[in-house]
């Protein structure tokens, strides 16, 4: 077996036999070559269209598999399993189960747009990563990612006030993801600044925390955005059909205003 095909052997596919004799040879136990079939039995033909209907996924059909996105990708350099080109291929051909093997990686895209810069077909792979992460959540394949939680907290503040206050976003995020506020490194950061004092600065951020920065005359704009959010969310659900569910939302904080009523 060529060395690169070893990656095809997956722990879940290795078969084990307590007692197995083939042509007189005892082959009981783990045998990495007795793996389950690798035959692809069917395509999910709706998958590409569904992902294309979510924001960012519009141009997925253009991809010709050149690899420029993957080879320029920031995350790929750190995590080789993060491979936008490959995922786009899986989505386009509808190999859902293959894609789902990497479901916990896709949201990690850092939106650096190196892929977008390199892509000769202007697929906007960054957008496709966002759309795919969205799709995985909407289909209930993955719980809401930390990144999505962060984006929602952020957006809620904007809908409400027009602006954000970064300490408040940070604190809410840590709370909603059940992380301690006083992590060693965060403490160090606060101490670094506090050591150089400015009492005034500390006061100022405390002030903006209580009196959240806001945009004057924002109310109507905030409401208009909220309406729009509900509208697109319904639209996306319809595009994904009955399959869209928030199966995983139990793991997450209670329903927030951002979601349309379910």
């Amino acid at each position, binding site marked *: 077996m060529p060395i690169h095909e070893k990656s095809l052997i997956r722990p879940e596919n290795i078969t084990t036999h307590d007692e197995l004799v083939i042509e007189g040879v005892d082959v009981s136990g783990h045998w990495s070559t007795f793996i389950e079939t690798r035959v692809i039995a069917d395509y999910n033909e709706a998958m590409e269209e569904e992902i294309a209907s979510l*924001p*960012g996924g519009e141009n997925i059909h253009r991809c010709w598999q050149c690899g420029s996105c993957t080879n320029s990708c*920031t*995350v790929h350099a*750190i995590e080789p399993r993060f491979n936008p080109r490959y995922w786009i291929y899986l989505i386009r051909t509808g190999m859902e189960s293959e894609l789902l093997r990497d479901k916990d990686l896709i949201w*990690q*895209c*850092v*939106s*650096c*747009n*190196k892929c*977008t*810069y390199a892509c000769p077909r202007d697929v*906007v792979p960054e957008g496709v990563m*966002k759309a795919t992460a969205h799709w995985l959540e909407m289909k209930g394949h993955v719980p809401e*990612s*930390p*990144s999505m*939680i*962060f*984006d*929602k907290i*952020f*957006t809620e503040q*904007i809908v409400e006030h*027009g*602006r*954000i*206050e*970064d*300490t408040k976003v*940070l604190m809410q*995020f840590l709370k909603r*993801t059940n992380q301690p506020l006083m992590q*060693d*490194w965060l403490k*160090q*950061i606060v101490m*670094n*600044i506090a050591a*150089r*004092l*400015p009492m005034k*600065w500390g006061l100022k*951020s405390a002030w*903006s925390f209580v009196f959240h*920065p806001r*945009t*004057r*005359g924002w109310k*109507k*704009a905030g*409401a*208009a*955005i909220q309406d*729009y*959010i509900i509208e*697109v969310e319904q639209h996306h659900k319809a595009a994904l059909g009955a399959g869209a569910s928030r199966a995983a939302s139990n793991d997450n904080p209670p329903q927030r205003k*951002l979601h349309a009523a379910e």
Partner: protein
Amino acid sequence: MVDVTERAKQLREVAYYPGCALEGSGNGYDVSTRAIAHNLGLKLRDVKDWNCCGAMEVKNIDPKIQTYLSSRVLSQAVNATRNNVVMAPCNGCYHNLKKAEYDLANDQNSRDVVEKISAKAGHKTYEAGQAETIHALDWIKETIGEEGLRERTKGKLAGLKIANYYGCMYVRPRHIFPEKDQGPGSESTSKPHFMDDLLAAAGAENVEFPLKTACCGGAHTLSDSDMSTKLVLNILQAAEANGAEVIATECPTCHSGLEMHQIRAEKRFGKKTNVRILYFTQLLGLALGIGPRKLGIHTNISESIPFLVEKGLT
């Protein structure tokens, strides 16, 4: 095309859009930008009742909301000054305003959504072309320029080794920056140099730095901190390996990302780096003889004051 000196004159007064980050964690960038504007005799007119540009976070919820938010900022900037130029020092804001401008000029769907939300919100819809967005780098480069800085700073940053870090949002994707990559004099999206040019004019020695437009992982500073720490550490180590004493930044998100993850890299991975992180406006301010407090250097997380004292810069 407007001639260069005419344009320089026009840009002496611009609308100023600080954005959320400069009101909070990026306070030092705001303070130093205002301080050098004052020193250089450049006028900043704050955009009235501005709102968040939409940032990456809102774009992830739905890109068109980001387009709307940025369009509202642009509409507030129209008529704020005679030239309708709005200067945004934050890469995120700058990028988003540019992106909104591009989308509104090229995509009917975006125009429809923006029109609908604007109508409900009760204000006039921004139309592409009514305002022009520039970055703080463009602003200094086009008004004062290298020649002007050379005269005013007398090479005060001499001997300071700097790695210039521009990040992602200033250059990518390329199509939203039609004025870049236009030959001599224009900014490059693959090897940006405006910050290098300005700091060199103030006497600094720019080191060779291949990670100018690498990503600091700012999108996941909190949601995937290990990833961000690794990416930042790469940048810090590359800067040090190339002999940099300071990394100059031009974006509050990159800046605080570098600062926070410098500490996190030490705490979590035991990897200590010493390179200092300063906004280019703070460096130019020092070169112009402005005191570190007036430039908000003490509010940076990264400790650089003893070093600056040692270098005779304060």
